[in-house]
């Protein structure tokens, strides 16, 4: 075929469409009207609208995404697109689920709350699986990592909607100092100018010409940016709006370019010019394919050049359908009938003239009772008098039940709305934010007044242009409507239905039943019937539901109120909201200056916060973690080991009052600590619970360097800053995070002194010159390093602090100088094992936010003479001084071949019944447990009730398979309790 058609498949059959066609317009072009099945009753459904408000025509696109629930009325076709109808099996025409329609009388509103309750176990095994099988519309999508980006805008004015009002507003702002963003959800600007015949000309120009010229003017104004194919979905506080732009209009998806762009807009003023949405009327079988909203029908004609049907019946309760009538007759098509609810006297003369001129039957003061047909409209019943119904054959019925200003965004902004008795709808009343509504969204349905409205409402903006335009309007100038929400059925039947929510299959009967059962509040009604909870959020029907309900309750609609319009305006894909900070960019990997060395030396990494830390180093590919850790630990205690400790937090603290400050932040006292000495320090929260620990180095009374845990680094600095700024602003103290300015190596083991002396041959590392818990600064190459003698392993040890640039070189130098000494690089797991052997705690493992220093036997770390420090007062509360609190103890299995599992509980009972029926009394839990390669048995720490007094006694530890292991309660220091190795 040599035409320039775009070919796509729908349910396996190939069709051609035009460029710019949506799936819906292309299907209509091919005379396909039946496109899907409904949610609950599996009734045949067609194309109801021509846009975002579509409740029915949801399809699945079969491609790399398998995107479900795509609105056929929005999504544009591309060459080779494969489209499938949803919620039917095995095929659209023969659908097994349509049996539900027969059962519909018992599937009444909320029926599931009243049954499926017994017998016991049936809900889980029988009913729910059955219900779940019927769940959902489309099938799950496939994994496809599309690239969606976010773009932030900071502007002065945002205009939502590039239709007539939006364009005029933009014109008013063109060339001014305001930064303006104009957004339209269509692929072209113009709105009703493009979609209807409502305006004949503007300033004596054809509407299309006017739109083009205006767009050109806006584009050249430099202060206005236009975004098309972009839908504003969310209106947050402080004029923060979110919109998504479809970048793949008419293109298949790829994962190279962004498919969707999420625009996050912060603006000073928001102009909502986003128009209105036509609503329907409920009548019998108002869901049949072939029923379509009138303005949508007209949009297909003008925007897509498709006439869905040449001789439809038009059914209206208002003046707007003139435009559709005019569009049809101008093309030489003749509607089969024009049904108007209103009295002939009330129908506008322009409409009457057209009807007469083209000899179109008018049924005034009449209504559609219903329509019939298999898989589509074939016959329409018109109630022309109270008891007289006539039937006319037709395949399409165009309905207009009036218009709703599209107030979704306005209410999201928390603006107040009010009911308008002449328009029979809600319209904006009072803005809450800097929000201006223009045109039909503001409830102004009269084009004559539009220029005046815009000039008036935007005059407060500085330096704006004065608009002077003349609009030549086709047909009735004033919008007129008569209330009609629902028409009466001819006969009462179990199966006849008028729908109020097409997507969720909610009927007007359901509404009545809900009210009968007491759900007379609109939110209850919504939740009980699921009305307006579909993917369209009841855009064409929710006001109708209010109309029907208020009639039943005999209240006015304002009293009934609306449900809350919840963002987003229209569904937005998760990946668009997530943006680029996902997949490979989900969260940063923080790397130490030695990261590459670790990778090259077969480190297996552990995630500690955002940091990547070597967990252990694999000596050879078959080495297990246990083997590696045992090897590393053993080696270190025999010779020496080196750990990359660069992730530990480091805070430099300085100021006249630094000493006072440090004394308040930590439990320990630093007053008597000599300069160039260090102390292991505990930090508490104000609740007295251990928050962090680390080593604090005192340079002098005005200058300290504190280290923190890796995970606690940011919090500790923030904690210090908070107290310094808010509680003691008069204290002269400053702190900088220097975590990233120094790499840290921890070298420990009996050979560490030899290694250090070889690497730094001009430094005296002897016990006298370099005692435990002191530090010194040295020049190294052209920089400075700091060496601290400290240990977390219980062995002789040193910590080196060096600027990152020099780190790798020094690290390699250390290995070079210790090549005959079996220096072993070790990771965090070995560090944990070694410190556990020594009985040192890890904050966050041996503590959990409920542990005080007293519970940890760390009373010695509390500066007794200090009047105050953070958390001190809490330590004397009644529950904190209770003797029977959980206290840290050591555990050793009586049978040394048994391992103790971390996280298991310490109990007094030897035997556990299985299954456990009655709670077993637990004394506490195992916080740390490792197999000690040095001692050749498990060593564990546990927090147990009254632990201090239980030392020496025998207890049991549970296992994950609910056995127990007898253990002895011991002190926590398993190795070298006298610290001889460390002080070597």
């Amino acid at each position, binding site marked *: 075929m040599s035409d320039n058609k775009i070919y796509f498949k729908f349910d396996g059959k190939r069709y051609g469409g035009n460029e710019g066609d949506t799936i819906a317009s292309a299907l209509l072009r091919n005379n396909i009207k039946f496109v899907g099945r409904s949610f609950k009753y599996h009734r045949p459904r067609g194309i109801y609208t021509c846009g975002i408000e579509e409740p029915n025509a949801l399809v699945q696109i079969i491609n790399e995404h398998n995107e479900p629930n795509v609105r056929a009325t929005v999504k544009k076709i591309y060459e080779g697109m494969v489209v499938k109808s949803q919620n039917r099996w095995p095929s659209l025409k023969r659908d097994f689920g349509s049996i539900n329609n027969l059962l519909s009388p018992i599937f009444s509103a909320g029926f599931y709350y009243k049954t499926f309750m017994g017998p016991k176990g049936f809900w889980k095994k029988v009913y729910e699986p059955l219900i779940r099988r019927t769940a959902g519309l489309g099938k799950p999508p496939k994994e496809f990592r599309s*690239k969606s*980006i*976010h*773009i*932030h*805008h*900071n502007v002065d004015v945002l205009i939502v909607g590039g239709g007539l009002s939006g364009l005029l507003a933009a014109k008013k702002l063109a060339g001014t100092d305001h*930064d303006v963003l104009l957004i339209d959800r269509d692929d072209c600007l113009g709105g009703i100018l493009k979609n209807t015949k409502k305006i004949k000309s503007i300033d004596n120009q054809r509407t299309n010409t006017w739109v083009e010229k205006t767009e050109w003017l806006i584009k050249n104004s430099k202060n206005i940016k236009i975004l098309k194919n972009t839908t504003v979905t969310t209106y947050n506080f402080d004029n923060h709006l979110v919109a998504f732009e479809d970048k793949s209009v008419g293109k298949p998806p790829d994962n190279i*370019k*962004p498919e969707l762009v999420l625009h*996050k807009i*912060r603006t000073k003023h928001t102009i909502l010019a986003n128009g209105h949405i036509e609503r329907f009327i409920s009548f019998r079988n108002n869901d049949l394919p072939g029923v379509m909203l009138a303005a949508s029908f007209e949009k297909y004609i003008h925007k897509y050049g498709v006439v869905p049907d040449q001789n439809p019946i038009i059914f209206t309760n208002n003046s707007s359908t003139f435009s559709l009538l005019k569009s049809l007759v101008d093309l030489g098509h003749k509607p089969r009938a024009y049904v108007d609810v209103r009295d002939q006297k009330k129908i506008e003369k322009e409409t009457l003239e057209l009807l007469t001129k083209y000899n179109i039957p008018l049924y005034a003061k009449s209504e559609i009772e219903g329509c019939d047909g298999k898989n589509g409209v074939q016959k329409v019943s018109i109630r022309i008098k109270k008891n007289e119904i006539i039937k006319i054959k037709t395949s399409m019925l165009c309905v207009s039940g009036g218009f709703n200003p599209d107030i979704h965004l306005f209410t999201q902004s928390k603006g107040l709305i009010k009911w308008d008795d002449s328009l029979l709808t809600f319209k904006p009343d009072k803005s809450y934010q800097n929000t201006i509504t223009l045109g039909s969204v503001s409830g102004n349905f009269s084009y004559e007044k539009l220029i005046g409205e815009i000039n008036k409402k935007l005059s407060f903006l500085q330096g704006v242009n004065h608009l002077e335009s003349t609009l030549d309007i086709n047909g009735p100038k004033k919008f007129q409507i008569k209330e009609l929400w629902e028409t009466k059925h001819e006969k009462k039947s179990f199966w006849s239905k008028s729908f109020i929510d097409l997507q969720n299959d909610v009927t007007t009967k359901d509404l009545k039943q809900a009210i009968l059962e007491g759900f007379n509040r609109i939110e209850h009604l919504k939740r009980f019937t699921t009305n307006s909870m579909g993917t369209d959020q009841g855009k064409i029907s929710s006001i109708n539901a209010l109309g029907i309900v208020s009639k039943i309750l005999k209240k006015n609609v304002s009293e009934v109120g609306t449900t809350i319009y919840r963002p987003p305006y229209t569904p937005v894909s998760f990946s668009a909201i997530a943006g*680029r*900070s996902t997949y*490979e*960019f989900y969260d*940063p*990997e*923080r*790397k*130490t*200056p030695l990261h590459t060395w670790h990778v090259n030396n077969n480190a297996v990494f552990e995630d500690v916060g955002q*940091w990547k830390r070597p967990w252990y180093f694999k000596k050879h590919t078959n080495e297990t973690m246990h083997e590696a850790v045992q090897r590393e630990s053993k080696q270190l205690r025999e010779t020496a080991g080196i750990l990359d400790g660069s992730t530990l937090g480091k805070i*430099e*603290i*300085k*100021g*006249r009052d630094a000493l006072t400050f440090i004394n308040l932040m930590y439990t320990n006292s630093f007053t008597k600590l000599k300069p160039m000495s260090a102390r292991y320090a505990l930090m508490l929260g104000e609740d007295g619970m251990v928050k962090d620990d680390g080593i604090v180095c005192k340079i002098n009374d*005005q*200058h300290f360097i504190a280290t923190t845990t890796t995970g606690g680094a940011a919090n500790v600095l923030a904690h210090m800053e908070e107290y310094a700024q808010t509680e003691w602003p008069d204290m*002269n103290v*400053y*702190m*900088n995070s*220097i*975590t*990233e*300015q120094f790499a840290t190596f921890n070298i420990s083991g009996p050979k560490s002194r030899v290694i250090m002396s070889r690497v730094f041959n001009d430094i005296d590392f002897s016990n006298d010159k370099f005692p435990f818990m002191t530090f010194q600064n040295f020049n190294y190459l*052209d*920089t*400075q390093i700091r060496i601290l003698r400290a240990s977390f392993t219980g062995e002789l040890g040193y910590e080196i602090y060096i*600027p*990152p*640039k020099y780190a790798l070189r020094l690290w390699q130098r250390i290995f070079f100088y210790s090549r005959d000494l079996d220096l072993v690089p070790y990771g965090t797991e070995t560090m944990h094992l070694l410190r556990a052997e020594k009985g040192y705690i890890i904050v966050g493992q041996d503590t959990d936010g409920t542990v005080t220093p007293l519970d940890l036997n760390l009373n010695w770390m509390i500066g007794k003479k200090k009047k105050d420090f953070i958390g001190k007062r809490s330590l004397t509360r009644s529950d904190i001084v209770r003797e029977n609190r959980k206290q840290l103890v050591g555990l050793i299995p009586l049978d040394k071949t048994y391992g103790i599992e971390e996280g298991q509980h310490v109990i007094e009972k030897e035997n556990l019944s299985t299954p456990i029926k009655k709670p077993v009394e637990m004394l506490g839990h195992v916080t740390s447990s490792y197999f000690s390669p040095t001692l050749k048995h498990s060593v564990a720490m546990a927090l147990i009730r009254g632990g201090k007094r239980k030392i020496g006694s025998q207890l049991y530890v549970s296992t994950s398979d609910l056995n127990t292991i007898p253990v002895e309660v011991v002190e926590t220091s398993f190795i070298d309790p006298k610290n001889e190795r460390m002080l070597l």
Partner: protein
Amino acid sequence: MTIIASGKGIEISQTELQQILLRGKGDGSFAETINKEISLLPPSDNLRMISNDKFLFAKQSFDQWSLFCLVEESNEEILRLISSMNANEEILASDYSHTSCFEITGENKNYYLSKLTHFDLRPKKFPVSTMAQTLIARIDCSIYHLEDKYLVTCHSSFEDYFKDRLQDAINL
């Protein structure tokens, strides 16, 4: 200076700059101590930057400044500077030279950065010779508006991630 990405009216390069993070009261004694060392008075207006041919000096908040060496100094000299400043007990000067620095130039730099940050880069809100601390690509950054470019700094542990994000954004 290494170019890490370019095209579409943007060029991003990585650079190394010696930097000192200064804390202090900002009073006369503070200014004097600093001035003695670098012959430049610290800017007194918040978020302001001043510079001479050797230094760029930015005030980050009421008690915090960052000082960049525009001409590379010897390391010893930087350490000497820091230690002289620290001699004043009411000043904390920390060597911040191990911070990752990027320069972003080109006429589309604002549009480009709008893919990575909500920060309002319009010249009327973020004029030349001012600085800001904000989030770019979810990372804490400082951004300095120089005549025709932005200087962006972040902690070096985030460097790989940040670079990847910078490159990614240019392509999308």
